[in-house]
């Protein structure tokens, strides 16, 4: 269903106005973080109106400078980046072949459909159900407070997404191209690597980005398995809650640092978000 072109001008104005207001409501908190990050501690909770810099208060970059200068902040960005990149790569490395298998071969004992759904079902597992055993396992393996532990676990939790989304991408590719490759003497692996994979690359890249965002935002496992060394951005943020309480002027800076990458990803991967977040059930 496409929007009508011949709409009444009054209706057009009213609808547009409502849409603008709605978008503003959804944008406001992000704007508010930005505004708070520019305030002096004394102004944090006392600015009037909608906290517009220069109009309602005298903005300062002190919070940003202070925060970016801290070792912890840089360490948190570094850790979060490493963990999110490697968890995404690991999930893609495991998930893409499985997705290909589910799209291009027929399994007999358990049907392709049930296999796919089994992968999916991992996603609805409440993470808290595995938090305690993972804690004990990682303690046993001496992996508490390491990047590796968080990479392994995050990869596990985003793997189902990869399988399901990429499977759908492969299904949408014409199989004939791969068959042509067989004619040229390629084997299964060749057809996968040289034909299917390049064609699916844009979707795979978008999936990777979405997985990156998920891992970047993950908090429960990070706070459980890390204590001192492997501080990720969400833990760094919760760390502002030390014995001295939350310093919201710094918090706002950290919130901005935390939100900018995933929010950019949301814009970049727009086309794939619907499919990604509905596990391929709805196509965007």
């Amino acid at each position, binding site marked *: *269903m496409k929007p009508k*072109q011949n709409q009444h001008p009054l209706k*057009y104005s009213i*609808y547009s106005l409502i849409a*603008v207001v*709605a978008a503003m409501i*959804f*944008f406001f908190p*992000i704007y*508010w973080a930005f505004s*708070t990050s520019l305030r002096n501690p004394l102004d944090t*909770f*006392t600015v009037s109106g909608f906290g517009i810099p220069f109009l309602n208060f005298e903005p300062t970059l002190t919070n940003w400078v202070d925060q970016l200068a801290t070792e912890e902040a840089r360490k948190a960005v570094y850790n979060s980046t490493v963990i999110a990149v490697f968890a995404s790569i690991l999930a893609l490395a*495991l998930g893409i*072949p*499985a997705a290909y298998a589910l799209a*291009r*071969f*027929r399994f007999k004992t358990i049907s*392709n*459909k049930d296999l*796919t*759904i089994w992968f*999916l079902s991992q996603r*609805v*597992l409440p*993470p808290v*159900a*595995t938090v*305690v*055993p993972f*804690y004990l*396992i990682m303690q046993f393996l001496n992996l508490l407070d390491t990047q590796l532990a968080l990479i392994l676990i995050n*990869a*596990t939790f985003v*793997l189902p997404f990869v399988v399901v989304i990429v499977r759908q991408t492969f299904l949408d590719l014409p*199989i004939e191209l791969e068959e042509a490759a067989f004619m040229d003497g390629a084997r*299964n692996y060749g057809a*996968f690597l040289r034909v299917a994979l390049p064609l699916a690359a844009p979707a795979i890249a978008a999936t990777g980005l979405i997985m990156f*965002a998920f891992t970047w*935002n993950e*908090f*429960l496992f990070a706070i*459980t398995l890390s204590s001192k060394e492997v501080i990720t951005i*969400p833990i760094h*943020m*919760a760390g502002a809650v030390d014995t001295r309480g939350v310093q*919201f002027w710094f918090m*706002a800076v950290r*919130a901005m640092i*935390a939100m900018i990458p995933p929010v950019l*990803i*949301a814009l970049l991967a*727009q086309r794939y*978000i*619907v499919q990604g*977040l*509905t596990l391929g059930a*709805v196509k*965007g």
Partner: protein
Amino acid sequence: MKTHRNTKARFVFLLPAAVWVLTFTIFPLVYSLYLSVHKVETKMNVSREKVPMLDASGNPVLDAKGNPRTKIKINREKISTWTNIGFTNFKRLAEDPQVHSAIKVTSIFVLVAVPSQLVLGILLALLFNQRLWARSFLRAVMLLPIFATPLAVGYLFFTIFYEEGGPLGFLGVPFLSHPDWALFSVILVDIWQWTPFCFLVFLAALQGIPNELMEAAKMESKSKWGLFANIIFPMLTPTIVIVLLLRLAEAIKLFDIPFALTGGGPGVATQSMSFLAFRTGLRYFDLGYASAMSYCLLIIVMIIVTLFFRKLRQSYA
């Protein structure tokens, strides 16, 4: 579905992921079940000894007087005792007021937040399905909350809900200091974050309805409402079911927002199941009881999931 000729290669493709998922989910779940019927006590037996200090090449380090320097080595022996206590932990669940409250909090949260997101999502999707000023820009802005770090969102909304002069202070509402309002505030934050997702999915689904069908339907139905109730809504139903169940499964996991926004309070007014299980396991270190709690949550999710997959299987057909 057209497929390649079946070769053994298919297992090479599939198995790594399958084995991975099995190892990383089934094993912890079994371990967790085992934990839930045991009482774990860990003690360390420690002894200290002085050992000679060695340099990089393995020679003893001498002090100023020429005597070998020593350092302390700590010998540890960890002793864990596991006592089978049967279903004691599950019995505790049934009698624990904190558990009852957490189930209540989680249920209210899910039952209010999720339908609100769906309704708002549909309304916004219908709106954005019209011709609008700067439509694709506004649509892009609406996307932003979806991936905003939930923990950051929780802290952010603390400043927004600040009752002594915050941006919503003029409403005079005790957003975080009254138990009922606090739960409502948590719900509000979730609605803010997830309505855009519902909106986006419904918009995609609306745009998937063929134009011819719409034209034909317009001929028949007199009113806008009739058009919606008789044509659009039925066309959206499969999508609604999927979004509903996806959101249910996600909403039950509620953790980050109360953690940052309310700390689970006032009292236990916003303490969700996940939050309680987390605190019990990793703050009180009552591992067995926390495992029992999370199993209880798992069972609730399973019930919903069973519903979910029957529907999802159909949409995969």
